[in-house]
C-alpha cells in the first residue's frame, strides 16, 4: 500500500523533472538556435529545427550597430554605481553593527523600511529631479537612483555580516591604541571582503538588468543601457526574429559566461537578496 503510494510520488516527481527540463530549456533553445538562422529560415524549416549552418551575420549585424555603445553605457553605470554602493554600505554597516549610540536602532529601522519602497513610487519625482539638475538623458542620471535603491538591502546584508566578525579583534586593536577610523580601514574593511564579493555580484546583476529607471531617465540611443537596447533593436528589425534573438543572446551572454565560470558564486550572489522574513 505505502509502497505503491511512494512510486506514484516518485513518478510524479520524475515527470515534473522532465517537463521542467523542457519548459526551462525550450525557450532558451528557441532563442539561441534562432539567433543563428537566416531571416526566413524559421518559416521554412520550423522553429525546432537546428540552424542549417552556423550563420553569424545576425551577430555581426548587431555588433556593427550601436550595440557597443549600449554595452559601454551599461558597463560604466554598473561599475560606478557598484563602487559607490560598496563603499557607502561598508561605511554604514560599521556603525550599525559595532557602535552603541542613541539613534542606532531607529536609523537602521529606516534603512530596513527603505528596502520595501517600490521604485515606481519615486519615478516621477526622480525624473523631475534629474531634469532640474540637467542630467536627464545622460548616462549619469542612472547612477544616483541605482546606488540609492540598492543601498538599503546592501547595508542590511553587510551589517549582519559584520556582526559576525569577533569583537575581540577590535577590542585588542583599541587597547593597542587603534582609533575607530583605523580599526575600520585596517580590521573591519579587510575582513568584510567575502560579504562585499557576494554583494557585488548581487548588485551587479540587478543593475545590469535594470529597466524602469533606464526607461524613464534616458531617451536617446547614445545614453541608453543594454536592457533598453533590446527595445531599440525591436523597432529597427521589427519582424526579423533571428536578429532580435541574436540581440537577446548577446545581452544574456555576460551572465551565461559568468554562470559557466563560477556557477556557485553567481547563484549565491543572486540569492543574497532573499533575506526578508
Amino acid at each position, binding site marked *: 500500500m*505505502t509502497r505503491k*503510494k*511512494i512510486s506514484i510520488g516518485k513518478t510524479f*516527481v520524475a515527470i*515534473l*523533472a522532465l517537463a*521542467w*527540463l523542457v519548459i*526551462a*530549456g525550450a*525557450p532558451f533553445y*528557441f532563442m539561441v538556435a534562432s539567433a543563428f538562422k537566416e531571416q526566413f529560415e*524559421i518559416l521554412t524549416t*520550423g*522553429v525546432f529545427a537546428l540552424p542549417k549552418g552556423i550563420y553569424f551575420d545576425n551577430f555581426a549585424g548587431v555588433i556593427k550597430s550601436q550595440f557597443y555603445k549600449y554595452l559601454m553605457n551599461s558597463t560604466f553605470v554598473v561599475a560606478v554605481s557598484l563602487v559607490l554602493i560598496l563603499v*557607502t*554600505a561598508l*561605511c*554604514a554597516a560599521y*556603525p550599525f553593527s559595532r*557602535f*552603541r*549610540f542613541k539613534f542606532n536602532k531607529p*536609523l537602521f529601522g*529606516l*534603512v530596513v523600511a*527603505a528596502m*520595501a*519602497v*517600490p521604485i*515606481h*513610487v*519615486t*519615478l*516621477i*519625482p526622480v525624473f*523631475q*529631479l534629474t531634469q532640474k539638475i540637467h542630467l536627464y538623458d545622460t548616462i549619469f542620471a542612472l547612477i*544616483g537612483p541605482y*546606488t540609492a535603491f540598492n543601498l538599503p538591502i546592501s547595508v542590511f546584508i553587510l551589517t549582519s555580516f559584520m556582526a559576525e566578525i569577533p569583537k575581540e579583534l577590535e577590542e585588542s586593536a583599541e587597547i593597542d591604541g587603534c582609533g*575607530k577610523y583605523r580599526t*575600520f580601514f585596517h580590521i573591519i574593511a579587510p575582513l568584510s571582503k567575502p560579504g562585499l564579493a557576494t554583494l557585488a555580484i548581487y548588485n551587479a546583476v540587478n543593475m*545590469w*538588468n535594470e*529597466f*524602469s529607471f533606464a526607461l*524613464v531617465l534616458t531617451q536617446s540611443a547614445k545614453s541608453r543601457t543594454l*536592457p*533598453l537596447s*533590446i*527595445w531599440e533593436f*525591436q523597432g529597427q528589425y521589427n519582424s526579423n*526574429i533571428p536578429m*532580435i*534573438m541574436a540581440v*537577446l543572446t548577446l*545581452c544574456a551572454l555576460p551572465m551565461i559566461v559568468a*554562470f559557466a565560470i563560477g556557477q556557485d558564486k553567481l547563484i549565491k550572489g543572486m540569492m543574497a537578496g*532573499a533575506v526578508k*522574513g
Partner: protein
Amino acid sequence: MQNTKSLLSYRKRSTAIAATVFLIPVFFFILVFILYPIFNSFWLSLHDWNGISSNKAFSGLDNWKTLVTDVVFYKSFLNNILIVILSIAIQLPIAMALAFLLDSGGKKLNFLKMVYFLPMLMSSVAVGFLFKYTYDPQFGLISAVSTMLGGEGMVDLLGNPKIAIYAVIMVICWQFIPFYMVYFLAALSSLPVEIYEASVIDGATHGQYFWRVALPCMKGSIKSAAVLSLVGSLKYFDLIYVMTQGGPNGATELMATYMYKNAFQTMKMGYGSTVASGMFIVITLISLLTLRALNGKEEA
C-alpha cells in the same frame, strides 16, 4: 569621579561623531532618492500638472477622488492580486518539488540543476521579448506546438483579453521558479543530516521524510518565500510592460504600468503621482498586514 565621567562623555561624543561621519553617505542617498520622492509624490498628487508647464495648478483632493472611483485602477489592483495568488500557488509547490528532487539526487543531477537555472540568467526585459516571440501567433513556439499536435496554429495568447493575463503569469512563473527552487534547495540542504538519518533509521521512506519531516522543518523558509513573492508581485512592471503594455484593452494592466502610462505617456504627472501614492499605500498596507499575520501565528 569627575574624570571618569568626562572620559565617558568624551567617548560617547566621539562615537556619535564617528557614527555621523560613517552614516552621512548612506542617508544622503536615501533622503534624496527615496524619502524625498515619496513625500514629493504625495505633494504632486494634489496638483493638476502636465509635467512640462511651470505652473502646477493646486487641485486639492480632486485626483484622489478620481482614483477612488477609477475602474482601471481597481482592475490593475485586482490583476496584481491575481499575480500574487497564482505566483504563490504555482511557483512555490513546483519549486519545492524540484528542490527536493535535486536535493535527494545530489551531484548526479548537476546537469538538471544547470538547465533549471537558465531562466534566471536573463533580464526581465529579455524574458519578456523572448516570450513575446514564443507566443507569436505566426512564428512562435506555442503555435508550432499546436500545429504539431494537429491544431490550426495561429494561437494568439497575448491578443486574447481573457487569456492574456494568464499567459503572462505563466512567463512570470517560468522566470521565478528557479529562484525559489534555489532558495528551497539551500533550506533543504541546511537541514541537519541527523534528522534525515534518524528518520531513515526509524524506517521512513523518501516520501515520508519529505512530507512528515522536511516540509514541516521548512515552514519558515516557505513563509519567507511567500512574502518575497507577494512583495515582488505587487510591484511588478518590466515584463508586462515589454509583453503587452497592459493590453489588450487593459486586460493585463498593473498598478505600476497604469502609473507609468499616466505619468509618461499621457503626461498627466499629477494623476500619475496619485496612482503612485495609492500604490505605495496599498503595498505598504498589504505588506504590514501579511507580516503581522505571519508573525502573530508564530507566537501563538
